[in-house]
């Protein structure tokens, strides 16, 4: 009975949010020129939500602290870009070194390119995972970070010039035709990830996070499950990277430096490690916050007196301090492993009422 209630109310709210979002996005798309800025913030938030949630699968739900996100995003982004840049502009993009003849006309539809990007990232992850996943916590973090840097170095290397255009990067990547398109892609990915997290496989992930030995004793194959989590996460990270490439329209190897991983980690930590809604809300909160706080970077005067604090870089300082405050005082992030759920809220209220009644009866 309770279970049914939960599904009904929360599902209703989610559907309502989606419907409202679609209406708002259609409205924004119709007035594209007026709301250009808002659209770009929304698209960026959606892409980051996908990537943050995929990082949360491995970090939050399986308890493996992986810092390789930027590398897998790079793989997905480059695959998507190479396969979607229109064939007629390719000579312009690869003007320095030419393009590999096999790739000259290799153009596939965008969804196919995105999925291929995810697959490339997943294949690499499965190879990297075999040695790396034997390592524990901080060694795993630094090893994945190392792989991410290696991927970046290989992409930028002169040997890859004819494929990745080396250090010149790729441009003229077809972007989103409308913000609705970006929304649909992100929504599908997020729903699939939520289904995975709530499936029996997802429960295996959580079992490993809580207690590896206990998980093994109930028959979970630790290594296989870790590998699966890592590969699944990287698959979605790769697609997220492809979406990022479409959002940015031009990429180079510097886009995917360690800073990008830290930005995503910031979202995951602020939203709550191991919270689905936390990652999504966190992505919007951080991305929109960074834009809204832009006025901190501009000179600001109260009553003609210029406040010296306000100059470029101030908002990033604020974000760093915010991160530190969350880490130190709200160790589990804003949502702390819980989900934003209207139904839980009602149940909690009900329980409180029952408790009070019980107390009253005793007295």
């Amino acid at each position, binding site marked *: 009975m309770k279970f049914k209630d939960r599904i009904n109310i929360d599902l209703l709210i989610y559907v309502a949010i989606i419907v409202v979002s679609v209406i708002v996005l259609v409205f924004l798309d119709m007035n594209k020129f007026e709301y250009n800025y808002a659209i770009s913030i929304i698209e960026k938030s959606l892409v980051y939500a996908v990537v943050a949630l995929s990082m949360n699968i491995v970090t939050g739900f399986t308890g493996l602290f992986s810092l390789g996100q930027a590398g897998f995003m790079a793989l997905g982004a480059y695959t998507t870009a190479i396969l979607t840049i229109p064939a007629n502009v390719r000579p312009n993009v690869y003007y320095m070194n030419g393009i590999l003849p096999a790739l000259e006309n290799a153009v596939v539809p965008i969804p196919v390119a995105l999925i291929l990007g995810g697959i490339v990232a997943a294949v690499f992850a499965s190879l990297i995972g075999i040695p790396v996943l034997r*390592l524990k916590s901080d060694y795993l*973090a630094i090893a994945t970070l190392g792989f991410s840097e290696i991927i970046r*170095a290989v992409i930028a290397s002169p040997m890859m010039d004819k494929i990745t255009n080396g250090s010149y990067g790729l441009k003229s990547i077809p972007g989103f035709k409308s913000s609705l398109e970006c929304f649909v892609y992100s929504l599908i990915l997020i729903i699939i990830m939520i289904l995975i997290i709530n499936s029996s496989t997802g429960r295996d992930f959580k079992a490993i996070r809580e207690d590896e030995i206990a998980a093994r004793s109930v028959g979970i194959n630790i290594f296989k499950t870790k590998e699966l989590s890592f590969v699944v996460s990287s698959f979605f990270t790769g697609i997220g990277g492809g979406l990022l490439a479409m959002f940015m329209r031009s990429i180079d190897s510097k886009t995917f430096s360690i800073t990008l991983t830290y930005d995503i980690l*910031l979202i995951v*930590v602020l939203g709550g490690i191991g919270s689905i809604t936390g990652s999504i809300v966190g992505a919007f909160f951080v991305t929109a916050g960074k834009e809204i706080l832009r006025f901190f970077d501009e000179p600001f005067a109260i009553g003609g007196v210029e406040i010296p604090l306000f100059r470029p870089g101030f908002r990033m300082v604020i974000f760093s*301090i915010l991160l*530190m405050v969350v880490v130190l005082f709200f160790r589990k992030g804003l949502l702390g492993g819980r989900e934003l759920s209207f139904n839980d809220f009602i149940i909690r209220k009900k329980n409180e009422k029952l408790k009070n009644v019980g107390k009253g009866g005793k007295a």
Partner: protein
Amino acid sequence: MNGMQFLQHALTGISVGGCYALIAIGYTLVYGILRLINFAHGDIFMIAGYFMIFSFAVLPFPIAIIVTLVLTTLLGIGIEKVAYSPLRNAPRMSVMISAIGVSYLLQNLATYLFTAIPQPYPEIPGLKLRIEIGNISTSFVTLITPIITILIVVGLLYLVNKTKMGMAMRAVSRDYEAASLMGIKLNQTISFTFAIGSLLAAVGSILYFTDRSTVFPYSGSLPGLKCFVAAVFGGIGSIPGALLGGFFIGICETIIKAIGLSTFSDAFTFIVLIVMLLIKPTGLFGEKNIDKV
């Protein structure tokens, strides 16, 4: 590459390696005690560069150097007190995220305060002197770096092995609960460890940036990671190991750059890390049978 060129590059490599070794010792000491990769260590090194720039601008150089060393040491102790000590009983992931947070904060703070434009590093009189030995031309700082590094390491080994504070450090790194039961002041020992680590980072920073001539907010992040790799290579927790690791990474990196593969010089460091973790996770001189990896 002929013999002379090789010697020239090897000399540069040893010099860079000396700086790496000094930073790697900071990682090794902190990891030995807290089991924490101090992601902020590279940024402490970068901030030390800025301390030098600003103290040099107003003070004569011997005092500026002392001021830099003192300020950096205080910064290291302060970071430990604010960001790591409240999390002493938290899961390791939280502490690590806190360390990344500090690193993020220091980088952003440096960008905010000093802008992202590389700042010229002051020339300490005498250090930039060109010296010609046969066909090899080098600067005084390149020659003096490995010597300073080795002297510091000898001093540090004495401190760790022969003094009371060193004994406390070793005890805490072996088992901090038992150590505190034996009357060792845990917080004091940890602060002391951070102080030494930061002090060495400051020395390394003076030698490193004198050679590079500029400082920018991200100039600490990659050297920081490389030095961590150096520490892992030599065996985390081992000071001679960190020294050896620093020299190894420094020399290899310089030679890779010299043979025209500079895009791979950073990646090489991480390949070393991964190979090392797979073959011998305890590093060259690491202690065995500790469940770390």
